[in-house]
């Protein structure tokens, strides 16, 4: 589309640049600052033992986990908003994070290790997805409205279970649980799973962009313009659920990224999904990488839950853009 097409390439290139800058910053900044020369030395196989250890086993995995989680959440949010044709939709609106939280907190409550917490978070996310989808089927197939209402109600149910678990849990486990609920990357050591899902998902959604533009006009208009509506909605639903489940498993339920990043980009770039979807991945990844860097440095040696920072950064930025567009 003429206007947005001209802005597409510079915008995507600019966002890629920002993303790389954010990753670099995230690796360089922390309790021990690492200069660019030292970074380069480590990258080319040299550098001191301390720096190698710090970068290779701590900061780089964490930065990559942050970037991929942000990308997954923003892409899932953009897809959910089109699927449900509701600008208020976010990756968690259908109860996925609630199910994951119950799984993760349950594992923490019985004192499980990291792997089991992640595993049961993922299982909870899938269980919740299936539950919502099964319930939304009802008598005559699901519609976005039905899916949305079912999801919101199931999420409320999970919310009650989470509150119950928090009330019942011993005081020494509470901080870990609250951090998980706000989103926390301090235990994210293996970002590879997230990247393994994110990269194919981006490649899969790129050719779907124009079809999603048509779907956003409503199911009847989309069908009249040659879209097989149900198969496309299925694909988007399954994909968005998977992306969210992987993100939540990596970093807990980080808020705001999935809701706000796609909207910020729509305000800046228009609503062509061919641009919004890849741009969401880049901007979501950048936002979460920067937020996580701040989360572990602002009050060092204390670490804040990254969800607090995404909200503190995201809310004013979004409100400014919204105001500017009036």
């Amino acid at each position, binding site marked *: 589309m003429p*206007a947005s097409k001209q802005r597409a390439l510079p915008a995507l290139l600019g966002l890629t640049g920002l993303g790389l800058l954010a990753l670099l910053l995230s690796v360089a900044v922390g309790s021990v600052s690492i200069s660019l020369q030292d970074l380069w030395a480590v990258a080319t196989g040299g550098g001191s033992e301390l720096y190698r250890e710090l970068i290779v086993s701590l900061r780089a995995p964490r930065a990559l986990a942050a970037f991929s989680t942000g990308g997954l959440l923003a892409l899932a949010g953009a897809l959910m908003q*089109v699927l449900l*044709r509701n600008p208020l939709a976010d990756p968690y609106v259908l109860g996925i994070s609630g199910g994951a939280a119950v799984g993760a907190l349950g594992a923490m409550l019985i004192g499980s290790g990291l792997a089991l917490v992640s595993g049961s978070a993922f299982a909870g996310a899938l269980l919740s997805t299936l539950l919502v989808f099964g319930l939304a089927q009802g008598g005559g197939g699901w519609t976005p409205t039905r899916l949305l209402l079912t999801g919101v109600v199931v999420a409320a149910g999970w919310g009650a279970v989470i509150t119950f678990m928090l009330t019942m849990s011993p005081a020494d486990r509470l901080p870990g649980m609250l951090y998980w609920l706000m989103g926390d990357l301090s235990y994210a050591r293996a970002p590879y799973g997230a990247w393994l899902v994110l990269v194919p998902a981006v490649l899969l959604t790129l050719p779907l962009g124009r079809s999603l533009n048509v779907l956003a006009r409503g199911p*009847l208009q989309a*069908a*009249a*313009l*040659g879209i097989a509506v149900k198969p496309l909605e299925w694909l988007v639903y399954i994909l968005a659920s998977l992306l969210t489940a992987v993100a939540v498993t990596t970093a807990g339920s980080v808020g705001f990224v999935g809701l706000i990043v796609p909207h910020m980009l729509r305000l800046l770039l*228009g609503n062509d999904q061919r641009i919004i979807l890849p741009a969401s991945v880049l901007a979501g990844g950048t936002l979460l990488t920067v937020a996580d860097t701040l989360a572990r440095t602002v009050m060092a040696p204390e670490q804040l839950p990254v969800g607090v920072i995404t909200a503190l950064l995201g809310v004013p930025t979004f409100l400014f853009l919204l105001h500017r567009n009036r």
Partner: protein
Amino acid sequence: MAVLDIENLIVDIPGRADGEPLGLQVKSGQRWGVLGPNGAGKTSLLHTLAGLRPPRRGRVSLNGSPLASLSRRDVARQVAVVFQERQDSFPATVMETVLIGRHPFLSAWQRESAEDIRFAQEALSALSLNLLKDRLVSTLSGGERQRVSIATALTQQPTIWLADEPTNHLDLHHQVAVMELLNQQADNGAAVFMCLHDLNLAARWCDHLLLLYPDGELCFGPAPAMLVPEALERLYDQKLVVAQVNGAPVFVPG
């Protein structure tokens, strides 16, 4: 050959008993009008012909191929539907909205070509939307949005038009302009099949009429044979006065 062949069709309206089956052929160049009171099933019929809802019984064929055997994309390359209702959940400009009419002709990786953009621009000119092309559709008036819908269908370059109340929300000038446009499409070989609530527009612009009675009875044929005051009064359950203006009948509620 009939571009649209309707055989023994019973439209599936939940909770309604089977009416009289519909069997008729729409040929290229014809301008069909569907008349009937509110709730007679005009929109449901139109959606069934577009393949957007399955029929309860019977068959619809497009250029000889049963609709059920065609993909949505194949249908969309021939048939444009103008809907009565629109959904704009997300902001989009007039140009973006109209350009979406090219969707069925583009592959997944393809971007709109200069020719596609030209089709869209011509459609915008035809509906006098040039000055509005960068406006957000959500900021337009009802009549302007209606013209955007018709421009989208025109960008699709259809051989069959299925239009549900194409003159909805339009002022008198644009009602005539849109009917002229559809007329011209038919002259160029398209088949036009539209639901209308305005008897006088139907009388002036349609060459064939289909009357849908609320009890499921139906009757169709060349327009002059259908424009019988007694039949129309029974159709709408409304007394009519017929006047002659420039030698053509004009119907006014009595």
